[in-house]
């Protein structure tokens, strides 16, 4: 049934589906997991690093990209589509700055990306972008923001969200563990992001990449050592919590 209505993107099926958009959402699930958390004074983006071939230069395989000094995004899905969207967003950020002499707000650039994606769901002969994006940053007033866009061109603000493979598992973890306590300070927010990723990442800390933006500070990418440090602290805390539990029950 679906095959009669998924050839041309502009065709609705009798029950109101745009199959190409739904198939694009499947393409997003093929990308590795990315998680975004909005803290009180910090925004965190964590991604599962894609395994790189032996002879491949790791620097060219990046899931977290800066769009401007105060905005960055992580994506999941088709690499080439992401490159195109990121380039357009970066140009728009600078164009906005030159035109109105103000940096973009996070919501503005998210809306720009979402509008771009929506255009491709309504054009003849073009397929949608096969990526979802998590866009984080701080607005002028110092308010932290996290937005998520998807191939259909919708965007929503989130307190914490995940995209890509196993996003559901990570989202369920966040729903259980995202509390005011957990994001009370920067360190805890970072730990929450890493803990969420460790639920689904296969080989622990060495397959995680992390980026943070603190209020009025530029984007900071964590080094592998810093991530390992955080992971070992998390493991220590886990052990201590388990010891306490066994003492209570024992």
């Amino acid at each position, binding site marked *: 049934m679906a095959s009669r209505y998924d050839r041309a993107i502009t065709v609705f099926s009798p029950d109101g589906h745009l199959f190409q958009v739904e198939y694009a959402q499947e393409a997003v699930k093929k990308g590795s997991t990315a998680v975004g958390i909005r803290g009180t004074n910090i925004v965190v983006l964590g991604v599962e690093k894609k395994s790189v071939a032996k002879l491949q230069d790791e620097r060219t395989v990046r899931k977290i990209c800066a769009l401007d000094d105060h905005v960055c995004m992580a*994506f999941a899905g088709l690499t080439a589509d992401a490159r195109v969207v990121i380039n357009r967003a970066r140009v728009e950020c600078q164009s906005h700055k030159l035109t109105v002499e103000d940096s973009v707000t996070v919501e503005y650039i998210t809306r720009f990306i979402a509008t771009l994606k929506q255009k491709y769901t309504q054009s003849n002969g073009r397929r949608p972008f096969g990526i979802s994006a998590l866009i984080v940053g701080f607005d002028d007033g110092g308010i932290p923001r996290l937005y998520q866009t998807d191939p259909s061109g919708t965007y929503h603000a989130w307190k914490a969200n995940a995209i890509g493979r196993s996003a559901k598992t990570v989202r369920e973890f966040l729903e259980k563990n995202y509390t005011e306590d957990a994001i009370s300070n920067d360190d805890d927010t970072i730990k929450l992001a890493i803990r969420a990723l460790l639920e689904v990442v296969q080989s622990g800390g060495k397959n995680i990449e992390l980026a943070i933006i603190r209020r009025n500070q530029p984007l900071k990418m964590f080094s592998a050592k810093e991530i390992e440090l955080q992971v070992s602290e998390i493991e220590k805390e886990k052990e201590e919590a388990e010891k306490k539990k066994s003492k209570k029950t024992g």
Partner: protein
Amino acid sequence: MAATFFGEVVKAPCRAGAEDDEEEEEERRRETPEDRELRRQLARKREVRLLRRQTETSLEVSLLEKYPCSQFIIGIGNNAVAFLSSFVMNSGIWEEVGCAKLWNEWCRTTDALHISPTEAYCVFYHLKSNPSVFLCQCSCYVAEDQQYQWLEKVFGTCPKKNMQVTVLTCRHVTDYKTSESTGSLPSPFLKALKTQNFKDPACCSLLEQPNIVHDLPAAVLSYCQVWQLPAVLYLCYTDVMKLDLLTVEAFKPVLASRSLKGLAKNIPQSTEILKKLMTANEIQSNIYT
């Protein structure tokens, strides 16, 4: 043929059907000797052959007639095979008793007659300490026309009734028909389908209508139903069809079933073996990040 507004070419039903059908049938009957030879060659190419692994000689009788068993566990597809390799086959010594060699359009090798031993994707083992436990690892696709041959050569024409069959396989979650949207499904998840004679409780919920099972697992289950053998199929719906840790681990509840209980002994070691399998099999595709 007719063209739609969007440029699709569709086959329009012909109202003057009767006359056209007769002409087509006559053409089919005019088969030349070359056609017959081609059909014979194709049938030979698509034959399913069951071989003894070491000697590469064909088995004269069906596999289960030669090696009668009480428990037959079949893993179909790379995730099910990885599960059995890591959790079941590492807890005991398994002896290879044969393999099924077959060719169809899905096979990566072009040479049908000389498939190398490393590519024999359908391998049969029995547990050395208890030869009545039989295991099959099937990583290849068995086409519709080959499924009957496979069943005949493995099960034989008159299977023993005291055998219990367990099949493990995967399917993409988008094939799962439900009123919920696939985005909200907790994939990977397990569903079971059993024959009438299977009396034990399944390790997960049963597969609801209108979902159906396809390919070799369906053929095996149908065969078991017809011959009144107790059989159960554990079907894992997943959104990652390639070898994936979460999908393989989704089969873990099956370890509590009667057929697999006692076969999987060293779970932590199994998890390590599975992780090694994953890293060895990671495909370096750059399309998705």
